[in-house]
């Protein structure tokens, strides 16, 4: 008998326990849905010139609500199709990890949209978009502890870019003239689509996701 069989057994147990605790629903359809929705919202914002703070906030908060509801339905459909429990412990852990940063982001946004209203300057939309990027990045990073395939890295990309733009505008002491819809479209549309496409192309090779 291999003298290391006990160690190997322990390693196998550890691997299986880790695999068991990880959220396994396919993320590609969810990411592609979120990306398409983000791109559509950005296009609508640009086409209809929804540039006032209230219009900007209402558009993107509604987009977020639709994105969350859609992701929920896609995940539930997958669970029903696979004859698996939808509200499983890994799903609960991911939801619990996502909830605090997303709630905080939603709260800050509602306060900004309702109280600040349209009185703030033109750069306020951009600031709001950067705050959303930060909170969303934190949410992805927190959920990434219970999810495979680089979700934490995606979270860091959101956080990193938001911090970089904030620092750049503070250090240079200049107005950063990025249209907030473009920024949102790039990060919540383009980045989700790119990540979804990556998952779509690689998930079949590695069904563990």
């Amino acid at each position, binding site marked *: 008998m291999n003298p290391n069989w006990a160690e190997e057994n322990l390693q196998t*147990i550890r691997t299986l*326990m880790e695999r068991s605790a990880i959220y396994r629903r396919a993320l590609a359809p969810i990411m592609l849905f979120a990306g398409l929705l983000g791109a559509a919202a950005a296009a609508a914002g640009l086409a209809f010139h929804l540039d006032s703070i209230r219009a900007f906030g209402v558009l993107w908060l509604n987009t977020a609500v639709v994105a969350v509801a859609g992701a929920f339905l896609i995940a539930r459909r997958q669970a*029903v199709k696979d*004859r698996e429990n939808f509200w499983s*412990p890994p799903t609960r852990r991911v939801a619990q990890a996502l909830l605090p940063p997303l709630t905080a982001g939603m709260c800050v946004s509602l306060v900004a949209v309702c109280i600040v209203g349209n009185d703030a300057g033109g750069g306020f939309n951009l600031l709001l978009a950067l705050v959303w990027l930060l909170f969303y990045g934190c949410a992805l990073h927190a959920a990434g502890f219970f999810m495979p395939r680089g979700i934490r890295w995606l979270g860091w990309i959101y956080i990193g870019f938001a911090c970089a733009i904030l620092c750049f505008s503070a250090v240079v002491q200049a107005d950063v003239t990025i249209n907030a819809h473009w920024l949102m479209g790039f990060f919540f549309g383009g980045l989700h689509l790119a990540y979804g496409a990556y998952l779509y192309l690689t998930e079949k090779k590695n069904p563990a996701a």
Partner: protein
Amino acid sequence: MKPELFIQLDRVIHEKGRLAIMSMLAAALELSFTELRDALAMTDGNLTTHIKALQQEGYVTVAKTYQNRRPLTTCSLTAAGRKAFAEYINLLEQIVRQNKP
């Protein structure tokens, strides 16, 4: 290696397939039959046999419910199963420590 430690290992859990099922259930609290089958790449028959053996020992409970009008079979560890699994791991750790120079 002292043989007494090896002899103490729970024979029901020590089998490869059943150990994998116990490990998965220990971390996830409950898993559906299909999740276990897919994660462990077992056939339906093989998994059913192992789960029945664990059920007979009182280590696993099986619940049959419906989700969206489709049958859903979920498995979870009992308190006795959790205790037996913890004891099995303790013994493995003792064996590892004993084997180290």
